[in-house]
């Protein structure tokens, strides 16, 4: 029960983030100003994101396990993003920023 509530809460927060992001992004993508989105799209995007996140989460955990560590580090993330050097770079910058913050 507690578990379910937690996931729900997590999803809700994700929903907020997605909603906000989409609201921010859509006008910028929208050159002609005629693109809208349905609430269902947010739902779907949220669910997808959630799935992707859990996937990434398990991966990261396993990477860490493999390296004989108990904590997930930036290296695990780098390993995960090994196929997308662009993102790797981005994430490393982001992490630096957030650390600085």
């Amino acid at each position, binding site marked *: 029960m507690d578990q379910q509530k937690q996931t729900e809460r997590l999803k809700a927060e994700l929903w907020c983030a997605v909603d906000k992001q989409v609201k921010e992004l859509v006008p910028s993508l929208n050159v002609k100003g005629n693109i809208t989105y349905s609430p269902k799209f947010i739902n779907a995007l949220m669910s997808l994101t959630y799935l992707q996140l859990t996937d990434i989460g398990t991966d990261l955990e396993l990477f860490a396990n493999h390296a004989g560590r108990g904590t997930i580090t930036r290296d695990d993330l780098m390993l995960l993003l090994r196929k997308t050097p662009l*993102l790797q770079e981005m994430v490393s910058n982001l992490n630096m920023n957030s650390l600085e913050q």
Partner: protein
Amino acid sequence: MDDDDDDFSNFEDDELDSLYEKNINKNVQEITFRRSVAVQRDLMNNILPGEKPIYEEIQRKVTFGPTHHKFNEESLSTYLYPTNFEVRDYQFDIVKKSLFTNILCAIPTGMGKTFIASTVMLNYFLWTQTGKIIFTAPTRPLVAQQIKACLGITGIPSDETAILLDKSRKNREEIWANKRVFFTTPQVVENDLKRGVLNPKDIVCLVIDEAHRATGSYAYTNVVKFIDRFNSSYRILALTATPGSDLDSVQEVVNNLDISKIEIRTEESIDIVKYMKQREKVKIQTGLTTEIEDVIEQLGIAIQPVLQQAVELGIYEECEPSRINSFKAMQLSQKIIANPTLPEGIKWRNFFILQLLNHVGQMLKRIKIYGLRTFYNYFINKHKEFTTKYNLGKSTNKIAAGFYFHPILKTLRENCDKHVANPKFLGHEKLQNIRDELIDFFENGAPDSRVIIFTELRESALEIVKCVDSMNDKRIRPHIFIGQARGKEGFDEVTYSRKHKPKGRKKEDKLRRQEEERRIEEQRKLEKEQQKLERSVSRTGSSEDAQINGMNQKRQKETIKEFKEGIYNVLVCTSIGEEGLDIGEVDLIICYDTTSSPIKNIQRMGRTGRKRDGKIILLFSSNEATKFEQAMENYSNLQKLITKNFIEYKKSDRILPTSINPECVKKFIEINESDKEVNNMESDEIIKYATQRMMGKTPKKKTTKSRKVSKEPKSKQKQFFMPDNVVTGIIKASTLVNKYNTDENGNKVRQEIKAKPVEKKKLATLDSIENDPSSSDLEDFDLQDYGTLKHDQKTLVDILGTVKEETQAQVLPNDNYSGSMENSMVLPVKREKREKDVPQTIGKLDSRSGDSRVSSAKPLATEEVRLPIEDMSYFAKHYSKQDSISINSIPNLSEANKASLIPHTSFTQGIIGLFRDMRENKPEQNIEFNRIKCIGKGLQNGVLKQKNILARALWIITISVTFKNCRCRQCTKIHRN
């Protein structure tokens, strides 16, 4: 000669190539014209329904390439025209045209169609070295006639000709192979084409006699259709006296026989009239005798109440009772039967009324046109049938009872009985006319003349025979001539009533019944014998016998022989005598009745006036005259229509190269003595003679031949004639789909890209890697903790090779592919124990499988499937043969194959499940979403505290990951953000 024949100089090179390659030298270009058309619009400026804004027209341009037939080059410069007979302009014209186009030649009977056919056949015989020339006609006499013309006029050597009339002839293969000119029936040709005995590509000229029959699925149509599939370079010459009864049927014949032009001549055509034999046409309108008028009146009184009822019910138009039309009544009754909305009771009542009217109509027709006896036979038969049934209680038809039991019919019957019993009584005025005309004819004409009388009904034919015979004039000797079906036996009262009598159930009853039956049967036999004896005594006995039993072919032949010999000199025919019988020269035709079919009328009249002048007598009574005029007028209108180009023609191959324009050489052709005899022979003798010639004259030759045959393997392998350039074997559907690409103009472009040649060494190594598609089993696929998936293009070559067979393989030798081999799409997958990567790989493969499928059809368009250079170098570094599994044909995982049995990872399953649920609009999911949304809204509004800032950051990452493969501007923007 023909300006519209194309020369080949304006052909593209590859077009010419394909022509030579194909041998089917027909080339059809379709040009579609579209033009916008003004349309009607409503107020909202919308096009009204049913309006088409575009006018479309498709023009077909048919061109023919060089033929595959071998010519005798030296003879091509001329064509022969025999002058053994007088040269007739129209024949000369038609021959000239039909040498170069497919002609339907419609000229009146006796105007030398056979001569035209022989001349065309002769010239094709001389022009080509091996081409087969086939003459087809539906009946033996017609075939014989043609043989006579061919051997007797044109002098085609008889050892090159063959007659195939009976299907029983054994060595047909040999005959088809060795001879060049064939006289046969269309059925034989059809059969032998289908059996593969006759090669359709050998045929260079096909002559079709009585071409108006080429409708529906008659053998003519099938033969032409069959040959068309293999051979477009052959000449068709169709001959007929009557191309059809209306424009549609003419068009059908033209379509079926690939006709390019109709050459039609009528008896009135200027160029024909001067050659026409004089045919005197006498029309005699006869009235009705008082006896007949009485009968009609009496019938009218009897039927009046029924007719009244029918008119009141609205099922028959009001008319005088004497004008009841059986055909109309029958049509109406069929309409009623077919009408499903009527209640059963009403339906059948109406049906019976109309049926009765139909019968009465028949009676009226018989009495008006054929005479009292024919009528009375019919009437008594119907009357007896009904009364017996009614009295036995099998029929409760009150309406019909009212008619048949009408008191006036009793007097009618008494009267008729009296008349029929009187042998001197003539049933119709026409009979008197016949007598007069015959006497007149035989007194004035030559004593060896012959007369044919046509009628539609057998009964009437017999009556005529009897009537003519009863004149007791020795100069006039009539006989009947009818088809082989047995005459319809009239209603047998005795048998019927016995059959339906109440029967005893006991054994003795049964025995008694059987005894009775036997007795009756014997009695009947005796009666029959008696009748037969009586008949054989009387002079018309043979005709009577024939009327009852029908005439089989043997009897028909005998009769015709006797007719020719003069034992009989008046032949009374039903429609069987109208066409195709070699009856010889007839000087007088009497049409006892008329038909509304112009073809039948013309064929009837065509029996006379062939070599000398003839006379035709048409006997009309009641409305027959107008019917006849109508039919003939329709026909002449049709002829006018045909000459006015209302028919759509097909273009035909000229066969001869356009550069050659043969000159006509008129020449008297010497015929060797033995073939000259043919001119004096009768049809059966001709066939016999020609068959002998075909088989080789001396029996010695025969034996050598038969020995040869016995040496050969008994059962020859069946040959299948295929159209040229067909691909045999098994073809994958996918390759059929994508044979062509369309370029920017929308034209079809064959997928052929030339590739640089590469050394064969590489090819060898790759060969070793290559795996059979079938061996790329799933177990290998499952063991994916190692594995380099390799997609090898080389195998595509193989797949293609088998598919496209040699044709393609020659064009695209293997070397062509080796160029792409360097870049062959090899997919490296790093060794990883992680299960998770497998689906991704599969996913990748999957995405590529689409490409590779396309590329299997266009093998050399490799750009799409190449890997980026980094990957290539990575692969080069890490690849070793041992740790590779290669998958040649990439399984399409999304479809139901074995690969679909591999479970998805939880992630993919999650995605699939999510979208499936969304598609199905599952309530649980909706509820969950709503709840989340509520919480989310709460969070946004600050009702709930946002705990996890990290969520956002994570989301940014994920969204980037999701879009990582997308390189569009927006996504890169996101990446940058």
